[in-house]
């Protein structure tokens, strides 16, 4: 007979859809996000096939515009923003801090339902005929000129935003109130610090997006001039409001990834994270400074040169805490005892790809170069290095790392490493050529393009094929492991975190005995054995 744990406690559908267990809600999110990831990925694949030739052959211009809009909306709001917080975060945060659950378990379940409602509305907009505004909904195109399902999609995003706010709120309260005895702030794992910073942004920035979408609706339905110059509005006001949310949202999308990387690097180097306090405060610095850089999306709109100057300066400043993190991760490896299991391969890939993404971000923060490169493929390549090379890689790394804890099973290490390497190669082949395309001046969101750009587009499309196949691999070997994988021990990686001190998978109530924390995180003996936080 199998041991009773959160998975075997009850098998009814009701026990899943009305659960308030953070671990089961994490699984609900995981299933939904996997679906959205592959929908968004399918749109990207179709675009890359179309772009293999300069002419339009696979799809018409209207369909192409709908594809990239759908790709952007799905990936940003229905995969990247909730990815690590709502799956890994939901599962791991209470375990990591020695709590029974999040502070508001029913709010947690509500947040999933709200998310699914928003997702369904957005999917309906796509199936009914699609949206052609791009994920940025720029006015006055979105308010007056687009004949697609703009308001339905905006409603979907608006609804999903409340799910973000509820999750952020839940994490903040949980981290403040439910830490185990002895778990002081500086004893928190850095994953918790980064999710805390993320939650602050979620709670503060998301309402601005909601307000902006409401203003679009008011203009579209009632003709009140906010953004349309013909009725007294200002199109640039929309961009200010939109990026006031959406630039901090970029940090919502990367901070949790950085948090995961701390856990991986430390565990597989058998050392504590170098410069713990600097890394912890760097997360909060990024969250704070991230609110002051939105104007760097508008250097060529004709905003005042002085504003551009300030936003450029702040964009360089916000890069400093990110640089601090990269240096500290590298220093963590020094004099460690490194093992290269699949999660570590993802972590190393993250450092390389994130750094390339970050450095090219400086190119774009640099005013004169941005005039040339903005709205070209250089930007596309840059943010995919951060969002996909960074966040998605971290998500996969974290998923592999905590998989034995979540499912109680071990996956095939051989296939996991193969997938990690294939994703790394496929990713670079897809997106590196796009830097060249952008530097040569190929604009983004182009359905047909001058023939001289074809070589780089073919390389990129070839890479996308590899990447698509590589992203499908985990579906098979992770899926296989759930049914046929070897049973995982409580602490397969010999890590010191609290989440590893309970059985795999954990019991419904997480810990049989309330853990009491006695030391800082990431402690290893001289022989590189983990020293559990509660021992």
């Amino acid at each position, binding site marked *: 007979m199998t041991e009773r744990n959160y998975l075997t406690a009850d098998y009814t559908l009701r026990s899943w859809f009305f659960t308030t267990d953070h671990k089961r809600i994490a699984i609900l999110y995981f299933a939904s996000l996997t679906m959205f990831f592959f929908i968004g990925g399918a749109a990207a694949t179709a675009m890359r096939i179309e772009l293999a030739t300069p002419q339009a052959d696979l799809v018409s211009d209207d369909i192409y515009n709908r594809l990239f809009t759908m790709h952007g909306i799905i990936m940003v709001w229905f995969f990247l923003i909730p990815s690590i917080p709502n799956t890994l975060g939901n599962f791991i945060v209470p375990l990591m801090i020695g709590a029974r659950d999040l502070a508001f378990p029913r709010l947690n379940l509500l947040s999933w339902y709200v998310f699914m409602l928003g997702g369904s509305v957005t999917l309906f907009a796509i199936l009914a005929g699609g949206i052609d505004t791009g994920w940025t909904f720029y006015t006055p195109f979105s308010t007056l000129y687009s004949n697609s399902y703009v308001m339905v999609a905006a409603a979907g995003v608006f609804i999903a935003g409340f799910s973000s706010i509820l999750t952020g709120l839940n994490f903040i309260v949980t981290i403040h109130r439910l830490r185990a005895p002895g778990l002081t702030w500086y004893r928190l794992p850095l994953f918790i610090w980064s999710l805390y910073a993320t939650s602050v942004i979620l709670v503060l920035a998301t309402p601005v997006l909601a307000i902006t979408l409401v203003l679009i609706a008011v203009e579209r339905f009632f003709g009140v001039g906010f953004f349309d110059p013909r009725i007294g509005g200002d199109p640039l006001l929309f961009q200010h409001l939109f990026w006031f949310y959406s630039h901090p949202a970029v940090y919502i999308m990367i901070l949790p990834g950085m948090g995961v990387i701390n856990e991986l690097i430390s565990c597989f180097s058998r050392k504590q994270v170098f410069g713990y306090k600097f890394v912890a405060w760097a997360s909060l610095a990024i969250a704070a400074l991230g609110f002051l850089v939105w104007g760097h999306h508008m250097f060529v709109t004709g905003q005042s040169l002085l504003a551009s100057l300030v936003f450029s300066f702040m964009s360089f400043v916000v890069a400093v805490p990110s640089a601090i993190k990269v240096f500290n991760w590298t220093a963590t490896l020094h004099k460690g005892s490194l093992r290269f299991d699949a999660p570590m391969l993802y972590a190393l890939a993250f450092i390389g790809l994130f750094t390339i993404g970050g450095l090219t971000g400086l190119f774009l923060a640099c005013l004169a170069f941005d*005039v040339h490169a903005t709205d070209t493929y250089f930007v596309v390549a840059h943010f995919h290095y951060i969002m996909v090379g960074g966040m998605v890689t971290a998500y996969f790394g974290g998923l592999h790392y905590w998989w034995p804890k979540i499912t109680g099973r071990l996956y095939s290490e051989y296939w996991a490493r193969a997938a990690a390497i294939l994703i790394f190669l496929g990713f670079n082949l897809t997106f590196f050529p796009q830097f060249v395309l952008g530097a040569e001046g190929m604009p983004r969101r182009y359905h047909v393009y001058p023939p001289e750009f074809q070589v780089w587009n073919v390389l990129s499309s070839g890479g996308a094929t590899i990447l698509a196949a590589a992203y499908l691999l985990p579906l098979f070997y992770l899926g296989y492991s759930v049914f046929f994988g070897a049973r995982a021990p409580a602490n397969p990686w010999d890590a010191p975190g609290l989440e590893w001190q309970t059985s795999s998978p954990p019991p419904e109530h997480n810990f049989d005995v309330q853990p009491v924390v006695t030391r800082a995180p990431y402690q290893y003996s001289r022989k590189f054995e983990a020293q559990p936080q509660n021992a």
Partner: protein
Amino acid sequence: MWRQWIPFWHPGVSPEGGDVDLLFTGLLIASALALGLLFFLLALFCVRYRAGNEVDRENHEAKSWYWEVSWTTASLLCFLGLFVWGASVYFELYRKPLDELTVFVVAKQWMWKVQHPGGQSEINALHMPVNRPIRLVMASQDVIHSFFIPALRLKHDVVPGRYQDLELTARKAGHYHLFCAEYCGTAHSGMTGEIVVMEQAEFANWLTQQAPASPLADEGGALFRQLGCSGCHSAGSKIHAPLLEGIYGSPVPLSDGSTVIADDKYIRDSILLPRSQIAAGYEPLMPSFEGKVTEDQLLRLVLYIKSLGRQP
């Protein structure tokens, strides 16, 4: 020329193109150094400190805040340098254009309509003389577009509801791409054209060969009468309205005590939103022409008023 040595790079042909290319090179070198150092350290540590490799790992918990302070300061200083460099070139790119050869651009879904002051107009093409700065005045009829010439390293959004001006100079004759860089709907990727840079004599020939209907300012004059503007803004009018002769480019005192220069933007705004800036000493009587004139007609009116300024 050093710029030809950058792989896959076509050197910019504007006077500032060289500065942008140099900046790009600087950014590339700085990044290559940073990445090179990082990848070297990652590789070194991964090989040297792999589990089971017997190497010195004494004092591996020792750390010093000196490291944190050093790499934070070093990054900040590098970033500041790049910031100042990028900003200085940006101010060159977007400096206020001199009022020389002015060409009007009206962007609409999905074409670029270019009009020269002599009345010559072209679609999705801009002919210009080599080595002579021209000033573009751009307006959009509908959504946001963006005027992008990669070869000149220049781009500027064309936002509806206002004029944007931009100075262009090309140092080399030839044909260059013109792209719309701001997504504008269905045929966004078809909103492309060509910048044709010609020798100055050739350009003069081209202008005369185009057989224009009439200069834009003259058409503006006809519009000025047709729309009834002349009923008030003329010397014999019974209505107390400002005379427009000589107004272009001169300071206008406003009723709120401030003063503006009567440039293209001011004249455009005064036609569309006459009550937003009232000239001192006049009643706010003028009706708005918002929705009654197109961007094409507006620029003709502006040019007509400008031509009044040149008369003795």
